[in-house]
């Protein structure tokens, strides 16, 4: 029966090509616009470390003085100061922990054909690599001993390794960073979490750090900090604050393998804050948060407003296209009232006519969906040409490809529902009489 309906549908669609093309175009435009923006939204609000992110937490404490404190309303600070970061790190209350911040280092290649250049860098303690599951192409991470010894060791990204060493195993080789010699201990594999959740003060997306060095070493060498600095009281001055300054500029991440451990860690943060308040360092009662990766991204509203606005716009556009298609289908089906009347008079049930008409709208939907997919590819290509930092990430993945067809089919079936129902209400006798 389905084959017969399909044949009828194709015949009917061929009969009025302009109208069919109009319906297909409307659906394709609506689907194309929606899928383009939904794909961007999907990519940008994705989980940066699937499988790992639920055990990673970002402790926030509030070391400020009492000025401007509104109990229950004031959020704690978004980063930690040097003193608090070191205290929390050395307390070792979590399964894994790392204290880090961002910067830029001058890379001076030995190869004289390459000019010195600046690379984005991460100054971190050793816990970073096992905690975030950084894969290694060559070599390995440094350990706590190197941290403690302020060792001049570095891990570089595979991109930087390609640029400097042509992709060959460079472990053990020397690398001149900001005027000092470092030994490469590892080359990271392909690893580029998006959003750049562990430090949102720089770019939120597509931030590729080329160089990783121990935090302790970076401070010895006076490597410049780059990122957010937030001071209170009389803090301030420059982008690389003094270690005793009342400024936050470091990120502290912990891994807590069970909810019970997370609850215990939160209690520890409250206890730490009370202790610091008693010491006179903190000027306000304990004000702590312990957000996991996705909660942290949500709290920071990391998906740009423009992207969300574009998604609403595209969905509104799809709705207009949808209403348009419903109107056109209704007109088309009602015009065939005579033909449908004959089918009904010859014994086709109302249900059969309804299914036949739905098949016809389904065909429009599938063709429209294919057109929409094509338009989404064009749309995403246009997005990639945009100046935004996330632009390069806008690619269609299989799940979104599947969603496109589902959306197209769903949209056109939905659009066909009302017209088909109206058309199968036709009284056969009345239609036959008028002819």
């Amino acid at each position, binding site marked *: 029966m389905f084959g017969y309906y399909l044949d009828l549908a194709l015949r009917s669609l061929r009969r009025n090509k302009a109208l069919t093309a109009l319906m297909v175009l409307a659906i394709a435009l609506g689907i194309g*616009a929606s899928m383009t923006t939904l794909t961007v939204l999907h990519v940008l609000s994705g989980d940066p470390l699937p499988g790992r992110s639920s055990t990673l937490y970002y402790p926030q404490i509030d070391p400020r003085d009492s000025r401007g404190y509104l109990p229950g309303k004031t959020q704690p600070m978004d980063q930690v100061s040097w003193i608090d970061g070191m205290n929390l790190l050395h307390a070792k209350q979590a399964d894994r922990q790392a204290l880090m911040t961002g910067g830029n280092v001058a890379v001076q290649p030995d190869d004289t054909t390459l000019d010195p250049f600046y690379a984005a860098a991460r100054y971190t303690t050793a816990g970073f690599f096992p905690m975030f599951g950084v894969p290694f192409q060559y070599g390995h991470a440094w350990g706590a001993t190197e941290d403690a010894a302020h060792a001049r060791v570095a891990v570089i990204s595979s991109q930087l390794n390609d640029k400097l060493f042509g992709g060959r195993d460079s472990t053990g080789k020397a690398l001149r960073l900001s005027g000092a010699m470092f030994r490469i201990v590892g080359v990271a594999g392909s690893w580029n979490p998006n959003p750049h959740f562990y430090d949102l003060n720089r770019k939120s997306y597509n931030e590729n750090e080329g160089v990783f060095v121990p935090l302790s070493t970076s401070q010895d060498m006076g490597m410049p900090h780059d990122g957010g600095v937030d001071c209170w009281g*009389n803090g301030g001055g420059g982008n690389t604050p003094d270690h005793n300054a009342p400024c936050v500029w470091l990120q502290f991440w912990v891994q807590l393998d069970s909810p019970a451990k997370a609850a215990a860690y939160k209690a520890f943060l409250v206890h730490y804050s009370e202790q610091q308040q008693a010491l006179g360092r903190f000027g306000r009662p304990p004000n702590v948060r312990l957000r996991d990766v996705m909660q942290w991204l949500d709290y920071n509203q990391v998906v740009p407003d423009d992207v*969300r606005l574009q998604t609403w716009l595209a969905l509104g556009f799809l709705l207009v296209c949808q209403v348009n298609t419903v109107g056109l289908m209704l007109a088309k089906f009602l015009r065939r009232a005579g033909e449908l009347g004959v089918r009904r008079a010859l014994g086709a049930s109302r249900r059969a006519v309804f299914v036949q008409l739905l098949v016809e709208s389904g065909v429009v939907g599938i063709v429209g969906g294919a057109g929409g997919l094509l338009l989404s590819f064009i749309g995403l290509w246009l997005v990639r040409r*945009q100046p935004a930092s996330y632009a390069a990430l806008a690619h269609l993945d299989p799940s979104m490809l599947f969603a496109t067809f589902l959306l197209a089919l769903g949209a056109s079936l939905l659009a066909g529902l009302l017209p088909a129902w109206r058309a199968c209400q036709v009284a056969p006798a009345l239609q036959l009489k008028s002819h």
Partner: protein
Amino acid sequence: MELRPILSTLRRHKVTAWLLILEMALTCAIVCNAVFLIGQRLQRMNLPSGIAEHELVQITLGHIGKNPDAKAQTETDLAALRQIAGVQQAGVVEELPFSRGASSNSGLMLDPRQQQPTVTVSQYMGQNILPTLGVRLVAGRDFGPDEYVDLDTATAALQSGDTKGLPQTEIVARALAERLWPGKDPLGQTTYVGKGIPLRVIGVVASLARPNMLNMGPQYSVVWPIHMTQADGASYVLRCAPQDRAAVLKAAVAKLKQLDPNRVVLVKRTYDEARRDYFANDRAMAGILIGVIVVLLIVTALGIVGLASFWVAQRRRTIGVRRALGATRSDILRYFQTENFLLATFGIVLGMVLAYGINLFLMLHYELPRLPAVYFPVGAIVLWLIGQLAVLGPALRAAAVPPVVATRSV
């Protein structure tokens, strides 16, 4: 034109008529809001910066390794840069209006005991800022050489709590002065930062925009007499005639590399490029919105054409009868035009309500002001025009139906 026959016909095609009204209403609502959003973006992109935009170039350097004598080197660099042909002014600035990169911001208070700052301002620090940027002083004076302090001295003074090493004076933008002391003379007034550090206003500039955080007040900025060097992350800014910018930039970079090859050029651009880069996303968004409006109007127009064609085909016989009974071609033409006008009017009324609703939603979730009433008539006129244009083709075809159709059986 008698409306009653049109209305009674529409009543017999209720569902189709409602769909057409709904489509026009949705289009009207989206177009009104999209045009409004475009207006907002254009307004943002045209914000005045207060500086001599077309006469500035910026160079930021990164030193390889620690630079023990950044201060002396900055002086040497500046002296050399001033020698370059075409350079009218040279200075050091940490930040520029509407540009990515570093920015320093502080909470300003009118009373040292205040719990919350009155405004959050951006502070310009560096050397020779007003003459280099071409900022116009409207009251008071620029800083004297003895008023400047070095950034590291100021930082050390902040930590020791000793107010001697801190700057005592500041220059404010006019918009900020009007916000802080409406109707009063800002000269001689005092603002407080941090834990109550006083700064006395000695000058007012006509306009000076902040680098970012424009929602805090695009013109809420101050200039502090704090010397910065390239080691603190500040940039060299040169002022020259617009046509000399490319040559000056090239010569300056070559000069700086020659003076000390041990550094890397991080940024070299004209201010126009910096500004264009800052507003690139707004420009892209405005482009997307324009594209959506155009496609939306085309889809709606095609929808009207499609439905009107069907109606005309469906009513061929009726039209023939009307023609046979003495209706002229223009009567038929006007019939379809009036019908569309009626539908569009219903659509517009519904669309206005929807547009208002969408605006309320956007105001709730995004930082947007209320939709000004002027957008409503604009949306109405656009919809009426689109409707009339779209229906013209089918209506003309209807008018061309000969009266003889009435006498033919189907």
